[in-house]
């Protein structure tokens, strides 16, 4: 791609991601409604799609308030950090053959780094609010994300071993003779759980936990800053779904050699199904207690990841030797 088309593509990816996140808020509520035997928002426009615009107008016209007891500049900076980090993460997502903003040879590490940066947003938001609930939410998010970060990265190393590359395009190409969701089943299992914890969505939304912490780290936020946190969360959901598709479900590769359908359609379809699965998890599973979350992470997920890593390494070496 020439420079001009690259810029056009980058801007369209950014707008698409933000628009997708906005539509995801409505779509999630409709889908939750479907699974909870109700309708969800269905009043404005066809299927209630106008709810997105209505929410946007509401959030934009709300009083954008900085509490006098808050740490002003950090308070303002926190919501932007999560959006910027998540949007940067989209730079390495391969939407199709060659349809990638930048094919870094450390693409996977870049993605992990960007999701880690998003932790600062929650942490600083909770700290700067100068509010007990927000502080508790920030504290929880720090512990949760730092511990789940560990095996989120490790669970992907199996994929890296099999494909022999950190570049996202190479990882997709190496899945031509079999998606990694079969050979790296344990890795997928751990990565899905770690990814939910990392994007702090239900059932692992302990930083927010509206039943105990009112709204956790964004208790003091309103208006557009609150909307930025929400945007970041839904961008995270989409980014994580894109990553699961790319790393474990063959990215833009067509299954059963149905190549007459364009690659980008396959990629979108797979990502869409992964998003639906995340919403299903939110619908079905209750939130664990804080200590349960930590013991699940360190006592179960980390050993599973390490076992997976050892077995994958041994098999990869055995095949290479034979």
């Amino acid at each position, binding site marked *: 791609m020439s420079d001009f088309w690259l810029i056009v593509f980058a801007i369209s990816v950014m707008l698409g991601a933000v628009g997708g996140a906005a539509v995801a808020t409505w779509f999630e509520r409709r889908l939750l*409604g479907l699974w909870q035997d109700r309708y969800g928002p269905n009043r404005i426009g066809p299927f209630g799609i106008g709810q997105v615009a209505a929410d946007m107008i509401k959030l934009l016209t709300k009083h954008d308030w900085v509490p006098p007891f808050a740490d002003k500049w950090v308070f303002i900076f926190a919501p932007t950090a999560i959006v910027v980090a998540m949007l940067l993460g989209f730079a390495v997502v391969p939407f199709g053959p060659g349809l990638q903003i930048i094919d870094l040879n450390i693409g996977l590490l870049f993605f992990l780094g960007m999701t880690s940066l998003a932790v600062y947003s929650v942490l600083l938001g909770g700290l700067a609010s100068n509010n007990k609930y927000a502080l508790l939410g920030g504290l929880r998010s720090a512990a949760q994300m730092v511990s789940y970060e560990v095996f989120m990265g490790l669970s992907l190393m199996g994929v890296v071993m099999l494909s022999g590359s950190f570049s996202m395009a190479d990882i997709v190409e190496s899945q031509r003779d079999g998606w990694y969701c079969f050979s790296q089943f344990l890795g997928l299992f751990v990565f899905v759980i770690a990814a939910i914890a990392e994007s702090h969505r239900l059932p692992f939304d302990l930083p927010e936990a509206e039943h105990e912490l009112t709204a956790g780290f964004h208790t003091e936020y309103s208006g557009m800053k609150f909307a930025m946190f929400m945007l970041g969360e839904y961008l995270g959901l989409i980014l994580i779904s894109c990553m699961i598709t790319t790393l474990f479900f063959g990215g833009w590769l067509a299954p059963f050699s149905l190549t007459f359908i364009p690659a980008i359609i396959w990629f979108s379809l797979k990502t869409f199904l992964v998003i639906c699965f995340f919403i299903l998890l939110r619908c079905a599973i209750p939130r664990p207690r804080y200590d349960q979350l930590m013991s699940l992470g360190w006592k179960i997920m980390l050993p599973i990841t390490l076992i997976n890593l050892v077995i994958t390494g041994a098999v990869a070496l055995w095949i290479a030797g034979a």
Partner: protein
Amino acid sequence: MRDLVESLVSQLRTIWTILLHTFTKAETVQYPEEKPYLAPRYRGRIVLTQDPDGDERCVACNLCAAACPPDCISLQQGTREEDGRWYPEFFRINFSRCIMCGLCEEACPTNAIQLIPDFEMCEYDRENMVYEKEHLMIDGPGKYHDYNFYRVAGMEIEGKKKGEAENEAEPIDVRSLLP
């Protein structure tokens, strides 16, 4: 280890059960478009009814106001000059206080006050929730079609002497010694 497997299976079964709910129908009643069925004896808005002859039933005995738990009924008794019937000079129900308990209906000796299956009484101003007699009165007997209090009661009114009511015996002259 067994606990771990059991809890994992339990979580997966939960996810599967929720997924099956894709095919169940929503329980929601789309209220303003789709009205729910209200039983004929539903306790909703309060009305004052008329007897089959088209005259108001209420005799202003004040029992409804006495029975009313939040004291939302107020009325003033008066006597009509031309036929001697009792009637309320004013009858006022403050629906912003009313709890639709139906105790007024049970207390009413003349079946005048009745609750009907209607609850849609929203107003923008609280004053509009105060219903006067002309708002409460309906042109009909409500749930009791044939009942007319003055036709069965012993009270004397214009056109009906003592002892002329239904099932009423002739008045006894208590000073007479005749059997």
